[in-house]
């Protein structure tokens, strides 16, 4: 047997293998949340690759909720794993990532180009720890066609919403039609569920890192949500409903009103949506006598401090956070822009006309408490909301538990 060709092949393979890195591209891996349309972000990455020959970007996704993604990233980052270069982070996480030293700061970055809320959310102790990916807040989605048919105006208060549902459901007489869908499962969205009516009463949860818990307002908030279940406005298994369940139910035409983030718009207008062209979006109702309040959402791009390609990763994040990328994602993925001027942009408004009024809502949206221990704060609130909606805990006990447990965390 002649082994020369084999040896030759092996040798040349080795030579190629050794020499390959010399010409190789810089390879970057970006972690993107699966619920934020990685396929649309891919197009933005393609544009970046075209503008930066020699750089190759791949996407990693995983987990379908903010908590699942946080757990995954916590594992990766606490192991000081260098496999991810760029990470997308929920707006509530930069403080935690900064405290753990997991993201590389952007020295000298001018944050005034962004909406003020996002300049603030990404600056921790005077350092820019991440750059905004997109803005978001919660809105009230409603069935324009049903409201018009029954002569109902979009509700300004939660009580008006209840009355509207009773009127519409009474006339429609469709047992599959649910009045209001919101998030009752013990997920991040349930934190906002609790805070919406709480804030609407003019109360704050945290002021300057100190807990300013108002028990009466908390009881009132929990009672309001429970009353939607008890009065048949929302379905009885609302404690099982997560954010994307709300989106799917609404899209299937089974819901009159829904509390959701901006991403639900693009899908509600898609070809396979039962409600395309029948959807209205407006600001969330207030408690009677209060002001409308909404939860500040949005996600941020961070560079892993363990990335071996710091400069290339920062360049990519600057691009992903640029006005062009923001505009592309607004027009193609209905992700709200982080630049004020894009809310008046023609191309953006053609895709999502309601963005014209959305800027004001985002600008008045309230941030959830900013603390490195946010995961604990969140867990306390969401499990209590879940327990109250399932009827396991009374609103009074629930509020007392939230207060007692938050006091331990936010000392």
């Amino acid at each position, binding site marked *: 047997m002649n082994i020369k060709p084999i040896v030759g092949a092996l040798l040349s393979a080795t030579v190629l293998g050794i020499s390959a890195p010399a010409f190789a591209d810089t390879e970057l891996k970006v972690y993107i949340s699966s619920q934020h349309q990685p396929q649309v972000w891919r197009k933005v990455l393609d544009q970046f690759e075209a503008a930066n020959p020699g750089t190759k970007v791949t996407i990693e996704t995983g987990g379908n909720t903010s*908590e699942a993604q946080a757990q995954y990233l916590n594992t990766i980052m606490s192991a000081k794993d260098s496999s991810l270069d760029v990470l997308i982070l929920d707006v509530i996480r930069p403080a935690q990532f900064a*405290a753990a030293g997991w993201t590389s700061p952007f020295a000298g970055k001018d944050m005034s180009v962004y909406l003020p809320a996002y300049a603030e959310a990404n600056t921790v102790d005077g350092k820019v720890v991440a750059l905004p990916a997109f803005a978001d807040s919660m809105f009230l989605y409603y069935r324009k066609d049903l409201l018009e048919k029954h002569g109902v105006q979009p509700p300004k208060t939660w009580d008006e919403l209840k009355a509207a549902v009773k009127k519409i459901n009474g006339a429609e007489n469709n047992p599959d039609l649910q009045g209001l869908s919101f998030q009752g499962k*013990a997920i991040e969205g349930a934190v906002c569920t609790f805070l919406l009516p709480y804030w609407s009463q003019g109360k704050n949860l945290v002021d300057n890192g100190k807990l300013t818990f108002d028990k009466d307002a908390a009881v009132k908030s929990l009672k309001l949500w429970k009353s939607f279940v008890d009065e048949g406005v929302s379905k009885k*298994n609302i*404690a099982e409903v997560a954010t994307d369940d709300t989106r799917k139910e609404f899209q299937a035409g089974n819901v009159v009103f829904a509390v959701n983030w901006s991403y639900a718009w693009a899908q509600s207008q898609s070809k396979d949506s039962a409600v395309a062209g029948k959807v209205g979006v407006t600001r969330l109702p207030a408690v009677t006598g209060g002001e409308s309040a909404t939860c500040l959402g949005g996600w941020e791009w961070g560079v892993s401090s363990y990335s071996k390609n710091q400069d290339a990763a920062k360049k990519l994040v600057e691009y992903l956070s640029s006005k062009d990328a923001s505009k592309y994602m607004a027009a193609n993925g209905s992700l709200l822009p982080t630049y004020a001027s894009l809310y008046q942009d023609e191309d953006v408004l053609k895709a999502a006309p309601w963005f014209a009024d959305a800027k004001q809502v985002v600008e008045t949206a309230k941030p959830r408490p900013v603390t490195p221990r946010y995961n604990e704060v969140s867990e306390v609130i969401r499990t209590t909301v*879940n327990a109250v909606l399932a009827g*396991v805990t009374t609103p009074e006990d629930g509020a007392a538990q939230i207060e007692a447990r938050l006091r331990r965390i936010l000392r």
Partner: protein
Amino acid sequence: MTTQTIATSDRIEKAQPGWVKLLDMSDRALAVLLLTPAAVLLTLIIVYPVLRLGYTSFFSLSLTSGLPAEFVGFENYQLMFTDPVFWETTWNTVLITLITVPGALIVGMALALLANLPFGVQWPVRLSLLIPWALPLSFAGLIFAWFFHSEYGVVNDVLARFGIEGVIWFNSPNLAFAAICLTIIWKTSSFMALIILAGLQTIPRSLYEAADVDGAGRIRQFFEITLPLLKPAIVVALIFRTITALQTFDIPYMMTGGGPGTSTSTLAMYIHQNTVSFLDLGYGSALAVVMFALSMCVTAVYLRIIRTKE
């Protein structure tokens, strides 16, 4: 032939004093040599982490604080006593163990006796025993989460066909707990059945034939022959099952996420939450030490039982 054998054994006996000692020594050396890699591996992946866990449990170490680790003595353990969630999750874990271990034993025993019947074709029976066991825990959890879903689930659908109104399983702590226990029993009884089946097949048929001759009935045969001879297999199955029951994580995590509230959360889930979500490694380690101690106690009790049996 015979003489040759004797001669050979004679020669060995004669050579024994010097030979065997040498052989013995090199055997021992060989044994040490062969065991070293396994010992090193075990030290690296079990002994070191366990010791490290115990060490960390005496520190205040939270990655969210931005502070370096600080020695706090037994503070993490003291914190546990006043932590209602710790007691709730520990109680849930104990309850799951007390319900699902005997549950899986009874169902597993029945399945093993069934599979041991002289079927014409054996493989479909064995295969159906293997499938639940081979399924990853989290898959089983996801599948049953859908089964018990109040709107789309097959359980409520079947109930409706019998004219019973479906319930919202995951809205009630008791129903959610029941659903979790049913799933765990379904998932783990096949493992019990496999071990018991192996035990059943070691029981000689002649014992039953003799019992038949003596006029013992089927039930008497089960209690006098099958059960006593199965005891070693059952104890082994119980040890494995109890330890995994104390570590229950995947199925409740996938089915309820611990809800409603924290009513179906287990100790393993609470450890995971403290370490992976809250990044409180000190407290999480202390909780893990408690779970480790709990598992060791249970194992010790079982080993005791085996020893007294012998």
